[in-house]
């Protein structure tokens, strides 16, 4: 069964360092998403990506964040200068289309900023 895969599963980084979280969405999907979940809190939308550009982003997704699809298969989230409050589970998701099609989530990357 096709699935969304994320690497690494756990990343520990020092405050101020750059991190890149990687995702391989399901191959025939067109919409890609990043969500995050701070421990004990809601799953929050960060950004959506379609047709090689950002389609929507939340207020969380500030200038420190960027996304890229460098090679047609990987979908990456970069945080330029991490802060302690960036510590969270980051989930990548993809969906086939715009309507009520299912969004499939990866298993997440646990980012710990120390």
């Amino acid at each position, binding site marked *: 069964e096709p699935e969304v895969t994320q690497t690494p599963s756990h990343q520990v980084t020092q405050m101020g360092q750059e991190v890149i979280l990687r995702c391989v969405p399901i191959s025939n999907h067109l919409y890609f998403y990043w969500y995050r979940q701070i421990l004990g809190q809601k*799953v929050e939308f960060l950004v*959506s990506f379609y047709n090689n550009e950002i389609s929507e982003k939340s207020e969380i997704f500030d200038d420190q964040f960027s996304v890229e699809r460098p090679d047609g298969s990987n979908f990456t989230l970069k945080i330029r200068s991490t802060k302690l409050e960036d510590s969270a589970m980051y989930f990548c998701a993809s969906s086939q289309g715009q309507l009520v099609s299912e969004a499939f989530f990866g298993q997440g990357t646990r980012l710990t900023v120390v």
Partner: protein
Amino acid sequence: TQLLEQSPQFLSIQEGENLTVYCNSSSVFSSLQWYRQEPGEGPVLLVTVVTGGEVKKLKRLTFQFGDARKDSSLHITAAQPGDTGLYLCANRRGSARQLTFGSGTQLTVLP
């Protein structure tokens, strides 16, 4: 922003009991999704409800969408320890249909 309120926040029951959890909003939904999330995993879609008054069954799980499409419930019959998890309702909105999640109900089913 369309806020989703879920209740109860925590629920701990014995195996074999029945339970109902709720998802409410002051706004009307075009559709609503229920997800289940286990520790260290991403959310997994259980069902999408679209029509007001709709009832969908998934084995021992029964999902209902309110007539006014402002609320939904999930009823589990004869709960099992494998039902333990975080149950999330979510609404898809925006040009890319991104999800807005409720805060979830953490269900623990004790053997």
